[in-house]
């Protein structure tokens, strides 16, 4: 299973590599010719940096999922210590909806700032942040519900994984919230006439939105995994 995920990831990297490369060039025969330095990539450095980071986060979660599946299927125990699935709290559905709304709000903010509609971008961007805080609170609520049942201890593997996976995902959102808060603070003073400041805000909001969409996809994947196993 892990191998399959892995090979998919590697194939992705290789294809990316082939797309940006022109590996048939003969650099030794091209003396003096100035070739355009950027061959396949046109987006700016922060955007590329974010995508590379998202690759790292993908790798992290894929490894977690691989570990989850291996532990579930190949744990060394039996009888009462066999894998017992967690009875997932219903609040997770609500949380998922809230996170979807957060992503939608961020996307509206991104579209607005791209048009220069600062007045619309500010509140929707802040709304994205608030909804995310609500999501995190909902996740903590889910933890409390599980722990209140008294059925699970740290030694229950499904429960430990539930907490671990939701916590790691939540930590990524908390990190994102710091960036979001910084951007929001900077935007309070934003003058729509200042093209440089506007471009910077556009970039920041764009990057935040990409990150949020990405974490939404990760959450939906995790949610599906937790629900079905």
């Amino acid at each position, binding site marked *: 299973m*892990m*191998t399959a995920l*892995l*090979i998919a*990831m*590697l194939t992705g*990297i*290789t294809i990316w*590599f082939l797309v*940006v*490369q*022109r*590996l048939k*060039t*003969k*650099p*030794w025969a*091209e*003396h*003096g*010719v*100035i*070739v*355009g*330095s*950027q*061959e396949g*990539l*046109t*987006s*700016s*450095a922060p955007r*590329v*940096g974010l995508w*590379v*980071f998202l*690759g*790292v986060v993908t*790798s*992290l979660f894929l*490894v*977690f999922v691989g*570990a989850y599946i*291996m*532990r579930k299927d*190949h*744990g*060394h*125990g039996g009888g009462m*210590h*066999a*894998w017992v699935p967690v009875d997932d709290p219903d609040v997770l559905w609500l949380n998922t909806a809230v996170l979807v709304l957060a992503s939608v709000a961020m996307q509206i903010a991104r579209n607005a700032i791209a048009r220069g509609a600062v007045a619309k971008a500010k509140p929707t961007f802040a709304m994205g942040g608030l909804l995310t805080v609500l999501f995190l609170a909902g996740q903590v609520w889910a933890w409390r519900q599980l722990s209140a049942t008294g059925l699970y201890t*740290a*030694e229950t*593997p499904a429960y*430990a994984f539930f907490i*671990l996976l939701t916590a*790691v995902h939540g930590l990524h959102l908390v990190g994102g919230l710091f960036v979001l808060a910084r951007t929001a603070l900077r935007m309070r003073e934003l003058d729509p006439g200042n093209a440089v400041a506007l471009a910077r805000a556009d970039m920041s909001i764009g990057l935040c939105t990409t990150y949020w969409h990405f974490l939404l996809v990760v959450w939906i994947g995790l949610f599906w995994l937790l629900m079905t196993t």
Partner: protein
Amino acid sequence: MAYVAIADRDHHLHDPQTFVTKYIWSQDHKVIAIQYGSVAILVGLVALGLSLLMRLQIGFPETFSFITPYSYYQFVTMHGMIMVIYLLTALFLGGFGNYLIPLMCGARDMVFPYMNMLSFWVYFLSVIVLIASFFVPGGPTGAGWTLYPPQAIAEGTSGVDWGIVLMLVSLAIFIVAFTMGGLNYVTTVLQARCRGMTLMRMPLSVWGIFIATILGLFAFPALLVAAIMLLLDRAIGTSFFMPALISMGTQTGNDGGSPILFQHLFWFFGHPEVYIVALPAFGIVSDLLATHARKNIFGYRMMVWAIVAIGVLSFVVWAHHMYVSGMNPYFGFFFATTTLIIAVPTAIKVYNWILTLWRGDIHFTLPMLWACGFIFTFVHGGLTGLFLGNVTVDLPLSDTYFVIGHFHMVMGVSPVMVLFGAIYHWFPKMTGKMANETLGKIHFWMTFLGTYAIYLPMHYLGILGMPRRYYAYGNTEVLPESGVIVNQGITIAAIIVAVAQLIFLVNVFYSLKKGKPAEENPWRATTLEWQTPDTPPKHGNWGPKLPVVYRWAYDYSVPGADRDFIPQNEPPREAKA
């Protein structure tokens, strides 16, 4: 274009003003590189000292009362972990990656200088946490560098109270530092190259570092996951890895965990880690050989492809470290096959290095000596890898000194050969002084011959059946009298090699103070870092104007040219036609 705006941007924002911003909280990639390098070498010296303590015990058992089984395993563990992660990874990528990428690509700095600074300081923190484990009750962990559960966190293992916790926390911090640095290296290579510098014009050093960084970014998360889960098993009693156990006569609370899962996670990181260290070495040695043999690298395009292919393949061979852990025979077959396939691109690289030397104008300068030494040690270590890659050969040799000999040759000595070659090669650019040739040559020959004296006999011991990780062998039939003598010889050789490294330190400090001033381009090299207006390069590297690249990095001994090298930024002669 966006990338020009970044590469050409004035870095007034972080222009250093005071001593503190210039040398401590510096955002200059060259200063960060030297900070990384110094800390890595310093902590590497600690690991070197630990290896001597281990060797003293193996060579002369029952002689040193302060080496107990408890502390012996701590030496083993800390030596391995420090050398692989905190020295080699940090020095190649944090040190040389930082120094070379912007200079060789023609950039003013990394694209995220602030994050680059954070990367170093977080790395420094991880080293402090690691070293702190020497001073906590119970000392550092003695779990072996692979930290396999259950014994890593089971009662009776050295450092089970504090040491293992600090080790895992330190690893997690290191991975955060590496990720911040790695994002910078990859993004800088992709986005901040100067005009004319296509990817296929980059020197192989940059290619090696670039692909190694990508490997690191994808492989380190596996170690992070393993570390977090092991930490939870240790701290709050989860059972991710811990099976039901009876420890010290009582049943532990754990049940159902899978120790094999940890091994998968660890080696999913651990095998690419070999190439995280090896690929930069491959790249750098290619540049050293071409420059000092005054000849273009043989098969540049094939070299790039080989680096990429090795990088991809390195993710599908990890279980060859686990043949004796028990697995489906078909898995063993699969992993043996992929392991042997990886020998193909690797062999291509070795042939190309030798063909680069073939009929070259070889100058046996210091860097060249080390580069040639690398070819020997690497071929040697690589060939024994072919033995161990086969399941049936590995089973009897597993956990013997043959394995120790193999991996020290291939990923200990070989990368270190390149590291020293690289330090001697770029020393003039980094410091403005030439390193002392005589001291360097003594250092080389003592190290090169000395490491052979250490590791060659280990293969013999391994075939005899001498197991690794034993504190003492006593009167076993496994180790005949000859084996005991060989072990004493190895220990003496190890002490001599360790002393030789002091010569290196003396050379560095002596040359810094009294070395011959270096010219701008003492090796008459083509790559951009030798074409900077100042030596050592000042902040921003290139003065007012970025370089423009007109050719690849290997125009040595071009027929009809005035000199035997043409720098990458030299425009073509219009009048030629």
